[in-house]
């Protein structure tokens, strides 16, 4: 046996060493850098954040080791995806991490960014942006519409639109990875959206040059995790929930809660039984139940089969209220 047996203390010391060293390595990577222009991958929804990100880059709160580990895993996964999609499928990735710039009318670079690369396809280069995410987020994203649901994903959309605009490209691909498999989502250049992003950047650029900040406006989904919250110091306005003390109402809610599993059981059984009696016009079960069935027909309009322009003529927006009841 070439090595001595390890003791409990050895194993314990090794665990402490690994934990400490890993923490140190992650911490050493955490840093902040000066910015001269807006970053295309970080077009935030808060105007004030955008100004802070350049004028106060040195006061930005640093992220923690846990988040750094996620960034590291994301970078590593970008390589893995390129391997899975690229080398294993015989596709060639080119111009990886190629930089691009957005200029204003005066020719000043107001934003800059990078795209993960392009895939050569039939002699043409298709831009791709790889985003890795956890299983929950991965399952939530199935279309471009799903990107609009969260501030972070909306940033991805703006990044891709600016890239397509800045490089005069008609379309690109998002490759979403859950660290095992991928989803491919097609993005087309939206001139209206690009105009809106760029005019906003131009307005903010002028504020940045003047050293002025937009008025702070508290939005929990943006502000609670903002790295500039300790210098922005926005007034926080919260609206309280209604607290209702009504025994009868509470009893009804309790009863509703009790009945909920029975509803599911009823629906499952109903479905199963009706499937059993499909195509059977008349039957008895034991001496207690008579089952009658008949074929019926109804007329309906298949909206999905309609040409899109015709369907759009009949689209109308209605507002409705959703009430979710959750036991706490």
């Amino acid at each position, binding site marked *: 046996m070439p090595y001595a047996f390890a003791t409990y203390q050895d194993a314990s010391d090794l665990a402490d060493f690994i934990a*400490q060293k890993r923490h140190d390595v992650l911490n050493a990577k955490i840093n902040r850098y000066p910015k001269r222009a807006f970053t295309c991958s970080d077009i935030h929804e808060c105007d004030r954040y955008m100004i802070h990100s350049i004028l106060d880059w040195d006061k*930005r709160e640093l992220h923690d080791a846990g988040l750094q580990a996620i960034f590291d895993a994301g970078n590593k996964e970008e390589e893995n995806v390129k391997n899975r999609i690229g080398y294993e499928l015989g596709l060639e990735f080119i111009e990886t991490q190629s930089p691009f710039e957005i200029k204003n009318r005066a020719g000043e670079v107001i934003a800059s960014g990078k795209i993960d690369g392009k895939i050569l396809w039939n002699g043409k280069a298709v831009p791709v942006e790889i985003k890795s995410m956890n299983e929950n987020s991965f399952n939530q994203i199935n279309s471009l519409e799903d990107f609009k649901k969260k501030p972070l994903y909306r940033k991805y959309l703006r990044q891709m639109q600016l890239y397509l605009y800045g490089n005069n490209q008609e379309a690109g691909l998002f490759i979403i990875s859950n660290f095992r498999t991928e989803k491919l989502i097609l993005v087309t250049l939206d001139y209206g959206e690009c105009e809106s992003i760029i005019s906003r950047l131009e307005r903010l650029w002028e504020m940045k040059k003047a050293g002025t900040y937009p008025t702070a406006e508290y939005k929990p989904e943006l502000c609670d995790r903002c790295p500039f*919250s300790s210098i922005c110091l926005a007034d926080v306005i919260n609206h*309280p*929930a209604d607290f209702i003390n009504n025994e009868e109402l509470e009893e009804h809610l309790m009863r509703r809660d009790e009945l909920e599993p029975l509803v599911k059981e009823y629906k499952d059984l109903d479905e199963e039984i009706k499937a059993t009696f499909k195509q059977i016009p008349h039957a008895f079960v034991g001496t207690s139940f008579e089952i009658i069935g008949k074929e019926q027909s109804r007329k309906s309009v298949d909206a999905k089969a309609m040409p899109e322009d015709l369907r759009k003529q009949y689209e109308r927006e209605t507002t409705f209220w959703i009430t979710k009841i959750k036991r*706490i």
Partner: protein
Amino acid sequence: MCETNEIISVNPVNSQVDLIDDIFAAANRRIQQLEQIVVMSIKRTNHNDWVDQGGKPYLTCSGAEKIARLFGVCWKNVKNEKVISTDELGQFYFYECTGEFTLGSDVITAIGTCSQKDQFFAKTKEGMKPASEIDETNIRKAAYSNMVVNGVTRILGIRNLTWDQVKAGGVDTSQISKVTYAKGGNGGGRISEAQAKHFFAICKQSGKTDEQIKEYLSSTYKIDSSKEIKTSDYEAICKWAEGNE
């Protein structure tokens, strides 16, 4: 029909007993409301919103923000200022963050501070980090976070909660992080759970009783539990446990 000159007769409040009854009734209502606030507040949080600090539950800023939204606690006129101070070791700075917290018509001023000497940011095995190695944004942010936690918990009257209350609110306390430094290499930290178990195993092998261990830790290191053993003292304590010292 009400006329302008109508005489309204009221029952006279003729004794102090009635007044005291009213005060008691109001106080009881207030107690019930406060109990409800505590329960609802905790239910709004999860294990990520709490840390075990020195054996007591401490609400984090994220938890305080969730609770603030539930009850409509607002804050404004926030100032976060750097203050230069001195002590026997020389000059140092701290951030003092103040803000006006409101809940309905109640208004309080809350303060949160964090010093360059804060042990979470500044302590190492060798002592205090020099100022150049401390990220000032962390100190400023911590002062702000402390102000939010202080303001929200004070105005709602939910300070000094117990583990029983936190558990009763449905929070999985076994998943709550502890503020220790054993694995983080920050020095001056506490030993890991594995080390504590190892220490007990040595004590049992050498025949030491729980009373003897408690007495030794208390008299020599001024601590009540093996969880509080500092990593720097661990070796010496293990030697004692083996009976060599």
